């Protein structure tokens, strides 16, 4: 490590990343000057990189990325699953799902890039995060993930000022004003309500004044004020979980639907996708649609009311998250017999309870690691790097062995996903922020 605080590993990364999208050759001296490297160190590294094939010489002493750099393109999007095929012993499916999806089910915003050159400034930066609430374990895990992202980008981000609106629209409006007055370079926001026009108008006003805004998890209906929206596919969560439940029940049965917080974009989109999917199964009868505030108590109370109203448990409970699924299941376990099939993960406790009681279930954990991903996107925006209008953190389909249906297969068994050493309210999808053995910084 030298006086500039950079290691040679960092300098190598910076040299390789200094080439443009079409690998236009550069003069060695220009590379070294643009990166503000010490001349002797810079030339030493450039020569070593050229010797080993990371760079190659072109005409007139210029350099470009070489064959070794091309090998960096080889990028698995998932970690290697060592002998996963044997451990999971999947059956080969003989056909693709006959269930129709709209095109690829792919939002065009995922491949539409936003020009961020207008936001490029020299760091370190100060960010604001207007958070809707920290009222459940998932939201607290997402905040932990943002802190993790901040630690990763510690040399670029000076501060993230966070506010908590406690699910109150008026409070969030005031907090957004307060954050905007504190000379922040970028606003991260997770909105209390997708339908509240005052919040949408406030974001539009700030965007018009030149403040870049990134939404996390909950966005306004009109995306035009956003540079980017960092999320996971709520559509996919609703669609896959409803499809699994309908198929698991053989296309017939009574279903209760328990959504999260009324008026929030994830709850609306998951519910919309699920209702649309259930409508393809005429034998599925939706007896009730309730909101639970994404809390265990909300799920427990909703099921308690429905049991009283209907007199008997349903054949399946569709929950858009295990945050309320845990409460629903707890109430149904107080009855005699095997509880009905459930959907919804997120919480370690949901997996523990289902596995302990052999409850058929499927879950697509909504990744709390989107917090750290949003911080990465913020760094890109303030560096002037184009970013996608929508950034999706990948989802995995999780279920206990023996629960697969014709169309819905496991990416990972619940038995392997659950963490028996962690508490019920641990959110398993928060990435490195959760890991006690994670690298300290």
């Amino acid at each position, binding site marked *: 490590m030298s006086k500039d605080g950079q290691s*040679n*590993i*960092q300098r*190598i*990364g910076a040299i*390789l*990343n200094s*080439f*443009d*999208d079409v*690998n236009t050759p550069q003069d060695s001296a220009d590379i070294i000057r643009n990166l503000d490297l010490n001349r002797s160190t810079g030339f*030493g*590294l450039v020569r*070593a990189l050229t010797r080993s094939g990371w760079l190659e010489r072109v005409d007139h002493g210029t350099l470009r990325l070489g064959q070794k*750099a091309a090998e*960096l*393109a*080889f*990028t698995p*999007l*998932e970690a*290697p*699953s*060592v002998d*996963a095929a044997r451990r999971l012993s999947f059956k080969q*499916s*003989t*056909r*693709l799902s006959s269930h129709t999806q709209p095109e*690829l089910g792919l939002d065009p*915003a*995922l*491949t539409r890039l*936003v*020009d961020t050159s207008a936001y490029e400034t020299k760091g370190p930066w100060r960010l604001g995060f207007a958070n809707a609430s920290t009222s459940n374990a998932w939201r607290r895990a997402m905040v932990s993930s943002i802190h993790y992202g901040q630690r990763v*980008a510690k040399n*670029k981000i000076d501060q993230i000022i966070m506010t908590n609106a406690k699910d109150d629209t008026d409070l969030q409006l005031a907090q957004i004003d307060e954050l905007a007055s504190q000379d922040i370079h970028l606003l991260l926001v997770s909105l209390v309500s997708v339908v509240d026009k005052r919040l949408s108008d406030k974001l539009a006003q700030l*965007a018009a004044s030149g403040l870049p805004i990134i939404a996390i998890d909950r966005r306004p*209906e*009109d995306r*035009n*004020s956003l*540079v980017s929206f960092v999320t996971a596919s709520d*559509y*996919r969560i609703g669609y896959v979980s409803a499809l699994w439940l309908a198929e698991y029940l053989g296309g017939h049965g009574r279903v209760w639907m328990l959504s999260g917080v009324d008026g929030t974009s994830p709850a609306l989109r998951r519910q*919309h996708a699920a209702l649309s999917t259930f409508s393809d199964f005429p034998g599925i009868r939706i007896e009730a649609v309730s909101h639970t505030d994404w809390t265990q108590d909300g799920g427990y109370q909703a099921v308690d009311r429905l049991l009283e109203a209907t007199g008997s448990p349903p054949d399946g409970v569709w929950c858009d998250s295990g945050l309320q699924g845990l409460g629903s299941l707890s109430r149904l376990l107080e009855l005699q017999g095997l509880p009905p099939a459930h959907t919804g993960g997120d919480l370690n406790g949901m997996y523990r309870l289902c596995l302990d009681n052999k409850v058929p279930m499927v879950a697509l*954990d909504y990744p709390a*690691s989107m917090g750290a991903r949003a911080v*990465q996107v913020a760094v890109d925006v303030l560096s002037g790097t184009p970013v*996608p209008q929508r950034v*999706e*953190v990948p989802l995995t389909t999780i279920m206990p062995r023996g629960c697969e249906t014709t169309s819905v*297969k496991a990416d990972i068994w619940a038995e392997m996903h659950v963490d028996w050493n962690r508490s019920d309210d641990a959110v*398993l999808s*928060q990435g*490195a922020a959760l*890991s006690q*053995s*994670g*690298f300290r910084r």
Partner: protein
Amino acid sequence: MADTYDRAVQQFEALIEAPLHARLATPAEYAKETGLPRSSVIRHTSSLEEMGLLDRDEKGTFLRGATAHKIGLKSQGWGALSAVIPPVLRQLRHRSQNTSFFGMVAQRMLHIGAFSTGRETRGNSVASLYQIDRLPKLSVGEAVQIALIDPNSDDGRGSQVLVTGLASEEQNQAVIGLMLPASGSGLSGLQEMLVSAAEMVKASGQPEKVGQSSKSSSFDPF
């Protein structure tokens, strides 16, 4: 004898290669895989993650990062595609359950870029480089089946893949593709999906200013 800078390059290679070969989530695992001291691993993985050369998944396991992927594509002139390829590949994998990949074809060699492993073809390991027979010129909306030969395989066996073109520059062609299961079932559905995904990538175009996207008039499912 290797000088300081050569050693730094060797360390960089070890650090960037390690997540391809094993699931690494702790300093001890990383140190064992790379042969580097634990303290160096902690310092270097931290800075490589900050630069986007390494990333971590939902379980905290290390992966090659978006910046590494982008440098790889830049070297072949396809840097502009780096942000749009991963989401399309993930969606292709979700829908088909087959391994999806981005590839660069030059001189009868297929260099594999990003890929997402599907359960139907999970048994087929993915190599970084394959020999192929001549790739026919692909017209718009066309996907073709080709055989891959793994030059490092003892018996020369490879896989069957379905590919469609994204763009071409001189002798270099960018494609996306799907590994095919041995049964070869569902080919027409896969062709349709692949062509649809390619259209999505091609439509990505130039970056737009904020607020240029059209407003949706009805409920926006995304």
